[in-house]
């Protein structure tokens, strides 16, 4: 039977005590003048700096606070945590530090609060790395244009509003239109990438939401295996406003670690920034900052811009090495480091010069990371020209509009593709998808123009009717169930079938079934075509074969349909 070796433990402790050197501790200390509602007014601490971390009552373990206002004779501080313990007259220690959170591998799969404390009951977070909550966004030289797709697995988005790695794409809509669903599906869709070079680490920041809602989101992520690569940062609606205010920055810092230190692709979902703005408004008003439009403080734009500017695609750094050079070579044969997109062309040219059989280009590990942001904003009654929505729209690289009318008409995801836009667009889209998507866009645009006529029920000429029919089928094709993201190749095949008219003779109600059956058919019986499309990302080579496959499949589908039909009636 094993038992603890008390002597060994005793000797270790004895050694530590002997080594301990007691010192007089010097600290800057102030006094609480007023406290309440998550804020405190502090007297003293004349050398405190704006944004500095403070500690109330106990220098090491007391509740944390942050210096918000520096005034003539006092400091306005926000309390990060429970302020109910703090009383007037309590000591306030300045730390000389900026607010920081633990970051690193230890956070993956965990649910934490914005200070890094665990909320999932799975034990303390032990991480040797910490990152400051505020961080200066990289300048122009450190970035490169976004050129890789972030696949959301959602058909209308990946085809017509494609998102690239390093882009900021806003998800905006009224309540209950499926904003969170889009973000969750995007996270789930990264499952296939996990474990490969293409892996995306996801951070889901829940600000001001019901704890029950967040718990169910975490559960969904867990069920789909997404927690293997996701961090959840939560500041619920009953958490103090200061925590709701810093939560998105904490999430961003955690993602930034993977981007800067490990060169990985990351995704950060801020759900939602409207609530963060409201929390910031609460803090600012309590600390008597002058209210502006809609009572928001004057720097509410800066609140969001400095958060979203930290999303970027970092420049990849490349070197030219001999083909058999060891994996971890960090120096190129000519000592040159090629940076960004021009670097990519230059390095390829240099390799040609040196001989493509003997040399190759390698990307330095730890470079070229990205942080894609999916901020979410809730509008009231579709009012996108309100203060906060317009602010965030002007910051992001595109918006996805979700409309309640579409939602209730059964179009889910309720994306209005007419007014949604991605400013990065095709530059970061899978090339094959780019090919089919342009036709899709045209079909839907024509359909929208004619939609009014469809309602009239009048006799229409053949061409107009054809456009309406095509459009209706494409809209049907773009619907998909929640938590079932589509692989980009499946999306390409489905849209290919649609834009080439193979759905035109099907009843609209059969489109979904046809799509499911077709995709299954291709995967089961033509896996090599599927693979080729996946690996080459080019449509032309497989185009003819796809036409063949679908043409041959259609009669089979019709047969099965008939059987089912007759089976039902007999």
């Amino acid at each position: 039977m094993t038992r603890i070796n008390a002597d060994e433990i005793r000797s270790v402790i004895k050694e530590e005590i002997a080594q301990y050197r007691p010192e007089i501790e010097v600290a800057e200390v102030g006094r609480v003048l007023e406290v309440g509602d998550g804020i405190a007014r502090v007297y003293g601490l004349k050398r405190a700096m704006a944004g500095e971390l403070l500690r109330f009552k106990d220098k090491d373990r007391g509740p944390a606070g942050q210096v918000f206002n520096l005034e003539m004779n006092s400091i306005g501080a926000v309390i990060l945590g429970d302020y109910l313990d703090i009383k007037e007259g309590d000591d306030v220690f300045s730390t000389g530090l900026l607010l920081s959170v633990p970051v690193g591998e230890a956070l993956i799969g965990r649910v934490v609060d914005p200070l890094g404390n665990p909320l999932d009951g799975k034990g303390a977070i032990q991480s040797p790395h910490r990152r400051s909550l505020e961080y200066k966004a990289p300048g122009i030289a450190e970035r490169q244009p976004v050129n890789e797709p972030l696949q959301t697995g959602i058909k209308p988005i990946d085809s017509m509003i494609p998102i690239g790695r390093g882009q900021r794409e806003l998800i905006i809509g009224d309540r209950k239109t499926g904003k969170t669903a889009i973000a969750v599906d995007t996270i789930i869709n990264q499952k296939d990438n996990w474990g490969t070079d293409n892996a995306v680490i996801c951070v889901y920041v829940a600000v001001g939401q019901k704890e029950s809602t967040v718990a169910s989101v975490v559960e969904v992520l867990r069920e789909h295996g997404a927690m293997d690569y996701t961090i959840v940062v939560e500041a619920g609606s009953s958490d103090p406003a200061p925590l709701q205010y810093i939560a998105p920055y904490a999430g961003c810092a955690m993602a930034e670690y993977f981007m800067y230190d490990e060169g990985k692709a990351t995704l950060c979902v801020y759900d939602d920034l409207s609530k963060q703005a409201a929390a910031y408004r609460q803090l600012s008003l309590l600390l008597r900052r002058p209210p502006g439009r809609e009572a928001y403080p004057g720097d509410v734009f800066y609140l969001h811009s400095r958060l979203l500017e930290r999303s970027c695609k970092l420049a990849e750094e490349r070197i030219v090495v001999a083909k058999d050079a060891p994996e971890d070579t960090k120096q190129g044969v000519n000592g040159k480091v090629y940076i960004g997109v021009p670097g990519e062309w230059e390095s390829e040219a240099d390799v040609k010069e040196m001989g493509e059989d003997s040399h190759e280009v390698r990307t330095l590990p730890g470079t070229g990371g990205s942080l894609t942001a999916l901020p979410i904003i809730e509008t009231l009654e579709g009012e996108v020209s309100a203060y906060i929505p317009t602010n965030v729209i002007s910051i992001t690289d595109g918006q996805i509009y979700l409309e309640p009318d579409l939602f209730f008409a059964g179009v889910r995801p309720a994306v209005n593709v007419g007014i949604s836009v991605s400013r990065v667009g095709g530059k970061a889209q899978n090339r094959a998808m780019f090919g089919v998507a342009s036709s899709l866009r045209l079909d839907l645009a024509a359909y929208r123009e004619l939609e009014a006529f469809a309602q009239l029920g009048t006799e229409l000429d053949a061409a107009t009717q054809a456009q309406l029919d095509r459009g209706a089928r494409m809209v049907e094709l773009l619907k998909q169930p929640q938590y079932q993201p589509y692989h980009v190749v499946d999306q390409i095949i489905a849209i290919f079938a649609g834009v080439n008219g193979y759905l035109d003779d099907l009843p609209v109600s059969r489109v979904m079934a046809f799509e499911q059956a077709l995709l299954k058919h291709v995967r089961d019986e033509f896996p090599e075509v599927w693979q080729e499309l996946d690996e080459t990302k080019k449509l032309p080579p497989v185009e003819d074969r796809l036409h063949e496959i679908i043409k041959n499949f259609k009669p089979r589908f019709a047969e099965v349909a008939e059987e089912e039909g007759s089976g039902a009636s007999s």
Partner: protein
Amino acid sequence: MASEQDTSLAAADIYAESLLELADERGIAEELFGEFESLVAYIESDEGFAGFLASSAVDDDDRRESLRRIFAGRISEILLNLLLVLNDHNRAGIVPLVFDRFKARFDEQHNRQDVYVASAVPLDDDQRAEIGAGVSAAIGKEAVLVERVDPELLGGLIIKVGDTQFDGSLRRKLARMREFVKERGRQEILSGKHDFWVD
């Protein structure tokens, strides 16, 4: 954005400055200090009177008459005038703040500084003298010790000068030692150099 407290403090500072100047002209600053100190101590002890001074529900004229009746002949003329002038400007409530600023300027003038000393047991005269001398030498001003006894310190002293606190209490040393041993112990365990289990 200045808080209410800040604007009051700014006003109090102006009154304090004028008061001190006047007292210096008449050479009565030291006595005034003592008198002002006890007046404020009284205000802080008597909630009713403090409320009476600060409340806007009391008519200024009534308050003026009351102050005259209460204090004439009991406090020096200059101090009474201060109260009346404050009252005329509807600022009777900031008397304690005026004293704070008056004291700050007075101490500055006399090169004095309040030094807060907390100990586990009351200091005896020798200790007091030693601490006073030591701190005075360190800060280059005359240290005026404000003492506090807190048995929870277990031993040692906490000395606070301005914003800076020097914590040499036994309680703090023990707490830090505990953290130190915990952390070092954890590192030792994780290092795997020891065998904590026996069969």
